Structure formats: C-alpha cells, structure tokens
C-alpha cells in the first residue's frame, strides 16, 4: 500500500501546476467553510448568551396554556403557591441546574403624574434573578445595579419617552386577576437597556412589590426561569424536567407544567436555525467544489495515462490495484487540500480574534466577535472533503481499472 501511495504521489507531482491549482481550490474552500463556521458560530453563541443570560434563562416553566397567551400576560394562568412549591422541589432535585428565578409578570399603567403609558413588569427575587440571568446587572445603565423594595427599574425607551430620571417618583396601576384595580407609588431605581427579544423591554420590581400591586394574598407566579451549570446539557435537562413534571396533573387529568427551552421562547432561534441552514448549504458548495475539481483532474489523469494503464495491466497489475492507485491519487489531493485549508483557517481565525471585529445587534452595540475553531468542525469538514475526493476519483478509477489492456496499449 505504501508503494502505491508513493506512485500516486509521484503521479500527482508529475503535473505540479495542475495538482497545486486543484489542491489550492480545495484548500480555499475548506478555509472559507471553517472561517464561516467559526464566525457565524461566534455570532450565534454571543446572541444566545445575550438572550439567555440577560432575559430568558436557559429554560422556563409555565402553567400549561400560559405561553399561548403570553402577550396578554394572563394572571389567571399563573402557577399557584402549591404548584410553585412542587416545581421548586423538583428543580432542586436536578443537580444540573445552577439557579432558578420565579417571576410574576403583569401588564399595567405607568404614570409620571403628567403622562401615562402602558408597561410590562417582572416581579422578581433580585438575588435569584441575578443568579439565573447574570448579565442582567450589566443592562442597568443608570442607578444602582440592584432591585430594591419600593424601587422600579424601567426600560430606557420608556424613560426617554416620559422623561423620567433615576430617583423620580412614579405610579404603577394594575388590574388583578379578580378585576379590581390597584396602584402603588415607586421610586425609579434604575434605567435598563432595552434589548432585542422577549422581555427585552420589560420593567423590573421586587416580587413582594408585585404581589402588593396585584393584591396577592398568596404568591402566584407566571414563570420560573432556569439556569443550567452546563448549557450543553440543555436538551437532557429539558427531557428530565419534562419527565419529572409530567406526573403532576390538574383536575382534568392534564399536565400542569409546560417546560420550554429558550429555543421555543425566542424568535432568535429562527436566526440561529438560518445560520445552521446557511452553514449546511456552504458545506454542500464545498462538496461540489471538491467533487467537480477532483473528478476533472482524475478524468484528465486517466485519459493522459491510458497507455501506462495498459502497461501496468499487461505486466500483471490486477484491476483492484489499478483502482486503488487512482483512488489514492484522489484521496491524496483531498488530504493535501484539507490540511492546507485547516492551516489557513487557523491563521485567519487567529487574525480575526486578534483584530477584534465588533458588530451591533438590535440596540446592542460593539459586541466583539470571538471566532474559534472547534476540533470537531475541523475533523468533520476534513472528513467530508476526503470522502468527497475519494468519491470523485471513483468513476475515473473504475474506468481505468476496467480498461482492456489490449485497447489501452493500442491508444496513441
């Protein structure tokens, strides 16, 4: 086999320029795919990180039916204190969960005593909320990075529209689930950055203040956001929670809880899917480049060496070895292109990381792209290229191995 490799390599080097051009084409293709994967992957993970770590959490649990009506923030679909207790107990049994944060979400009116507008509010336990979405404090642009009782954090757009500053007194009026209206004065404790995505333009207050506004005697929560120790275990934990919570049934015998990963709660998941689809099509393009270029060079190689094929067949080379010889040539072209492409990609990704490319997403500006190459991606792309190279060489190799020696020797 080593000898066949030696002959194959020498055959490739016989036409140095042609081999170099084909290998370069494959290398450039591999490089572009890997750089795209690295850059788009970095963009995707920054965005996922932003959404999950500053708003959603990795998973959320609601009462079944709540998410379908989430735009109206229905207080009638909140989880009861008993259900909350059961849910918290279950969460604590799952070692993969790092933190969780119960929230009361409601809509109300916000007034600075001159103007009034509507507002969506999250009532939270500050310490639990920050443990679950650790980027939340970084969104507080003005005021203390905390949620104190009696304070309200309002979104930047609302603050600008109503010309409200930190320290101003405001009123929040809300209708509770029985239909009665209540209002409470708050001090603006901070102004938070508005971000793209669900909940990105909500105000925040302490959960006990939310209970007071809504005149709740007993706590009833809208959702529980969950943070995992390892984001990679998202689906496994999701399945585990589904399994554990599916046993809790309501009076109609239907499950009480509805567990959803961030993917089923954020429209950004579609953007992430689009990136995956684009990556898939770029891989298809790479395979096409490899197939066409290798098939082209191998067809030429077979055509140019017909007499040589006749000679080696005449002196006793069995068809399988002739087939192997040409397959090895295709394989070697694929390997050389893949190796060169990987090296180029490493260099370019290193340069991109050093240059610190920044981009804006929604109202978030100056996010630095930090592309990195994963060994798995490099191996996968290299394997695709090498397999495609061998497949491309197969037809010309079969043609060579099936040649009648007498015909081949007669070829001029």
């Amino acid at each position, binding site marked *: 086999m080593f*000898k*066949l490799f030696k*002959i194959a390599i*020498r*055959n490739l*080097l*016989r036409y140095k320029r042609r081999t170099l051009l084909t290998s370069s084409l494959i290398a450039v293709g591999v490089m572009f795919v890997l750089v795209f994967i690295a850059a788009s992957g970095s963009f995707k993970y920054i965005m996922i990180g932003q959404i999950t770590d500053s708003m959603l959490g990795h998973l959320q649990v609601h009462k079944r039916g709540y998410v379908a009506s989430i735009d109206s923030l229905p207080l009638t679909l909140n989880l009861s204190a008993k259900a909350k207790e059961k849910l918290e107990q279950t969460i604590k049994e799952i070692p993969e969960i790092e933190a969780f944060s119960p929230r009361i979400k409601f809509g109300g009116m916000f007034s600075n005593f001159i103007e009034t507008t509507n507002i969506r509010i999250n009532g939270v336990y500050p310490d639990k909320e920050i443990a679950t979405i650790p980027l939340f404090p970084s969104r507080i642009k003005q005021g203390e990075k905390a949620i104190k009782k009696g304070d309200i954090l309002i979104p930047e757009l609302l603050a600008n529209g109503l010309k409200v500053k930190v320290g101003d007194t405001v009123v929040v009026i809300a209708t509770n689930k029985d239909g009665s209206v209540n209002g409470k004065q708050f001090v603006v404790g901070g102004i938070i950055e508005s971000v793209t995505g669900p909940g990105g333009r909500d105000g925040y207050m302490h959960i006990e203040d939310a209970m007071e506004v809504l005149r709740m005697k007993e706590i009833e929560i809208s959702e529980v956001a969950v943070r995992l120790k390892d984001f990679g275990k998202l689906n496994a934990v999701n399945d585990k929670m589904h399994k554990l919570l599916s046993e809790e049934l309501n009076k109609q015998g239907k499950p009480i809880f509805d567990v959803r990963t961030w993917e089923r709660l954020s429209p950004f998941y579609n953007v992430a899917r689009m990136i995956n689809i684009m990556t898939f099509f770029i891989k298809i393009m790479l395979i096409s480049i490899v197939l066409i270029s290798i098939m082209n060079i191998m067809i030429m190689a077979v055509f140019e060496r017909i*007499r*040589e094929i*006749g*000679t*080696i*067949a*005449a*002196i*006793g*080379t*069995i*068809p*399988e*070895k002739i087939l192997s010889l040409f397959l090895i040539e295709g394989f070697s072209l694929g390997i050389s292109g893949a190796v060169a492409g990987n090296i180029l990609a490493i260099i370019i990704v290193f340069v991109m990381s050093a240059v610190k490319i920044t981009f804006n997403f929604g109202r978030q500006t100056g996010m630095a792209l930090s592309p990195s190459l994963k060994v798995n991606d490099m191996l996968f792309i290299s394997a695709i290229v090498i397999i495609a190279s061998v497949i491309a060489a197969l037809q010309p190799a079969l043609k060579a191995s099936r040649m*009648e*020696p*007498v015909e081949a*020797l007669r070829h001029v």
Partner: protein
Amino acid sequence: MNLVSAENLRKIYKVGEIEIEALKSVSFNVKSASFVSFVGPSGSGKTTLLNLIGCLDKPTSGSLKVAGVDTSALTRKKAAVFRGINLGFIFQDFNLIPVLSVYENVEYPLLIVQNVSAEERKKRIASLLETVGMTDQRDKYPDQISGGQKQRVAIARALVTNPRLVLADEPTANLDSKTAFMVIDIMRKMKEEFGVTFIFSTHDQRVVREVETVYTLQDGMLVEDAVREGGINV
C-alpha cells in the same frame, strides 16, 4: 515440451458493422526455452497473435494453451495474475513508467504484482541490472536515459519475475543497429542462462537472423512452408 500450443486460432474484430478477421485458423506450437519470431508485413496479424498469447485478448474461436493453461477461460483478474507470474512483456515503445526510476521500474512487478520480499527483490534487481548493464543508471528516470537503455530496462523488468515466456512486440523497431544487436544479444543470453522462451513479433531482419524458429504470417494465416528452423535468413 510445448510451452505454447495453438490450434485453429481465429480472431475477428468488429469495427461498426464490419467484421475484420485478423487471424484465420492459425495452429502452431512453441517449445520451452526457444527463441521464436513471428514475421510478416503490417496487418498480417503478428501483434494480434502476441496479444492472444499474452492473455491480453481472447480468441474468437480455437484453442490456445500457454504453460498448460487454457487462457481463453481466464477472467480478467485471473488473466492479470497469470501474466504477472508466467509472462514478461517487452514493448516497441519501451512503456516504462515515467514516475519511477530505473530501479523502481524493474522492482514494480515484484512489489505490486508478486509481492516478493525486500531482500529477494534487491538480489534479483541487482543481478538483472548488472546483466543488462544498467547498474550505473539505476537512479535515473526514463526521460534521462536513451532508447537503448530504456529497452534494456524493459528487458530487466520483463525478466525480473522469472517468467516462463517473454513476449516482445517489435522490440528493436525504435533502436539503431548497434543498440538493436546489443538488446538481442542480451535476450539471447537470458534465454541461455535462465531457459526463458522468447517470442517476438517483428519484421526487423536483424532479429529474424538471430532467432531459432521463424513463423511467417500473411493476411492472418501462417504461410505454408514458412516455418524455418535454425536462424535462417528469410
């Protein structure tokens, strides 16, 4: 003992709708350790006959046995294996593999075809390169040596597997007289030393004068009383 035995051998080629009968009921025998030549004008069927003996092609009808084997019954793979073990080929255009050195060209059949051990390969190649006078050129590539030298390498390659039969199709056609005689001389020495049978197809009088048996072919048939023994001028 007959090494090659042909009886009523026919070969018909189809070119479109037209059938061309290249060999018309040819019968002959070639003994072991003989030096035989098929002569005749272009198109007389010499190369066709050599291709059949060399298991490169199959007869349309008739019987052909080489080393006791009915070669028309061999599959493509078995024919390749049979050629690799029993036959050696010398071509008019030398047909050396351009990417291999002189040494590697001679080594090729031992390595790729017969899988002979490294030690045995070295011994056989060194001996043959010495015999054909190419030891000094062993590391050169085919494009760095002359036509005569290429044919000497081709002879070494044909003999390195210790074949029972070497088929040489116009082996001196592209060589000058001096080189042609040198090449014929080498082949005769090989025949005497190793008992190898040589079958030539040629119309080169320099070769014909040197062989032991001459068969004359004309229009695909062996010409009557054209079999001459003992290196007779034709």
